[in-house]
Every structure is written in C-alpha cells, then in structure tokens.
C-alpha cells in the first residue's frame, strides 16, 4: 500500500506566526485531502487538492503530484488553529479509501 508521511510531528508557534506543514506520499494519488481535527475530535475538511494550489482565508495548500508531496500553509496563526492536521490520500489501488498520515500536532500560544 501507499505510505503517507507528515512533518513535523509537533509544532509550537506564537500567535501571529506563519507555518508550513508537509505531506509526502509514496505513489500516485487520485485524491488528497487536508483535515483539521479540533479539540472535540471533529475532522474538519480544509482542502481537497489532488494537484495545484488553493487558498481559503489564512490557509493555503499546494500539491505537486509529480513530486509526490503536498504543503499546507497557515499564515498569521491564531490560538483556534491549534489541533492536529492530517493529510490523507486516495490512491489508484485503494478503491476509494483514504490512507492517513500520522498528523502534525500544532499548538498556537497566545
């Protein structure tokens, strides 16, 4: 199966700082999603981005499918951005199943 690696595993920021989270995957993918898991456990869809660049407010994401990685950018971070960020991919042999990375735990301090 496909391997999904996220880095860094943990990240601590001061409010207002910018950050970049990375997701590497070992095979071609049909779908790539970024999620934010809030303190209550809810998985919030951030981006559906199998290729290209998207932006939503202070967040943006870029996937370079040919080089098998995706980046999530968070600008002007706020305490409410704290939580775990997951990258998940759907690859050709997966029959529409997602494989998740282990996540990046982001802590934003006031």
């Amino acid at each position: 199966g496909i391997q999904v690696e996220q880095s860094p595993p943990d990240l601590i920021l001061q409010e207002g700082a910018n950050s970049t989270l990375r997701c590497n995957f070992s095979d071609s993918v049909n779908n790539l999603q970024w999620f934010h898991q809030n303190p209550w456990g809810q998985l919030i869809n951030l981006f559906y981005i199998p290729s290209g660049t998207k932006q939503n407010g202070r967040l943006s994401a870029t996937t370079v499918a040919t080089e098998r990685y995706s980046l999530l950018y968070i600008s002007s971070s706020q305490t409410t951005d704290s939580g775990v960020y997951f990258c998940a991919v759907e690859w050709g042999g997966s029959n529409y199943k997602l494989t998740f990375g282990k996540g990046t735990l982001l802590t934003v301090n006031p």
Partner: protein
Amino acid sequence: SQTIHQWPATLVQPVGSPLSLECTVEGTSNPNLYWYRQAAGRGLQLLFYSVGIGQISSEVPQNLSASRPQDRQFILSSKKLLLSDSGFYLCAWKKQWSSYEQYFGPGTRLTVT
C-alpha cells in the same frame, strides 16, 4: 446539503458487553460509507467500508463487524468488547464511485472498562 450523524457521542462499556454504534447520512443517496478508529495517539485506521446495502468490506481482522441495513445507515457492532476496542470511532461518507471528498461525522468516544 448533506449531513452525517453519529450516536451515541460517548459510551462507557464493560469488557465483554455488546456494542452498537450508528451512523446516518442525510441529503444524499447511495453513498460510500466508512468506519474509522482513532486509538490513543493520532492515527486513523480504516475498519470497514461499504459501497451499497449489504455490501461490507473489512480492512482489519478484529472482533468488530459492520452492517448496512439501509442506504444511508451504517452500523458498527461487537458481540463482546475488549479493552483494546477503546478509542474514537468516526463514520465518513463520500459520493459513490468518484474521487471527491470524504466527510466525517462527529465521532463516538468509546471507553471499555
């Protein structure tokens, strides 16, 4: 718009007791449905998925089972819970046969004592 519901939100059960978790989706028809578990720590593990009524595929051998009695209803069950079954259980859906987004429910936090 589509919504996904899970209940109960939290559950504390003794070892050896049965389990039934329910997931329902509104606002769509014939979705793909999924059960994931998140143990202590972060990783999400796919347990079961279904592409139609009565069609269940298992990803991990365990003492859990899943059923899909109706198009938009997905049930996770166990006859006898183990301590290792504790965790956070998430149901998800997506449009069938398409590479679109998966959407997750609010989850059920299960503690087996």
